[in-house]
């Protein structure tokens, strides 16, 4: 519980408000975490991974109306910006646009809060620039 509260507290407040309930669960046979209708379930193995908290929170923003177009992952503005880029963020982003939006949100948060932004850790940042700039 302490992990859950501490790490969720690190998610920016304007993102946190889109999450309804959170539950920490012991590890199942597989799976890390999921978002169901704005609620987040986190399994032990990732309860302490800030990127996972941000990723799952991103699903709530995507689906519950944080953006002008809901869900964002299906919106023209998202897909047209995706089409302008050469890359996805990482292997998990390639799953589909739902996961891509969530992973790009993590990148976007990094870009906002870390001095110098995403470019400080990724030389090829322009490969996904339109996507993380959209958020």
């Amino acid at each position, binding site marked *: 519980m302490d992990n859950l509260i501490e790490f969720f507290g690190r998610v920016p407040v304007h993102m946190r408000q889109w999450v309804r309930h959170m539950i920490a669960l012991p590890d199942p046979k597989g799976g890390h975490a999921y978002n169901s209708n704005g609620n987040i379930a986190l399994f032990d193995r990732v309860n302490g991974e800030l*990127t996972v908290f941000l990723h799952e929170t991103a699903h709530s923003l995507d689906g519950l109306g944080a953006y002008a177009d809901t869900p964002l992952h299906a919106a023209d503005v998202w897909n047209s910006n995706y089409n302008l880029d050469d890359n*996805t963020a990482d292997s998990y982003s390639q799953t589909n646009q739902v996961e891509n939006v969530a992973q790009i949100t*993590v990148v976007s948060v990094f870009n906002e809060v870390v001095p110098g932004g995403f470019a400080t850790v990724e030389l090829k940042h322009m490969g996904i620039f339109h996507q993380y700039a959209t958020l």
Partner: protein
Amino acid sequence: MLTTSLLAAVVVASLAQAQRLTKPPLENSLDYLKDGLLNNLPSVHSTNIQWGGWIPQDCADMAKNSGLNPDDVLTYSVTYDDVSQKSSPKSTQAAGVDSDRC
């Protein structure tokens, strides 16, 4: 006719959203972002109140989906210090399973 077209459009749209993306990834994972995020997203103090014996339906459902008994879930209302009073103050409901008890 119109209904069939609309249905087809919805199916196509759903399939498109579920489609695997073909653009090459920049990296294998986002692990390289962890340190920057941890160092620049500070933890926020919160006050927590444990509820006695009440669990939101969504939490009960998620517990059951993991094969667990909702009665074993400890539920809390968590209010972070940075929640603005001007917007409706929203406390986060958090629940945890004490795995020792399961």
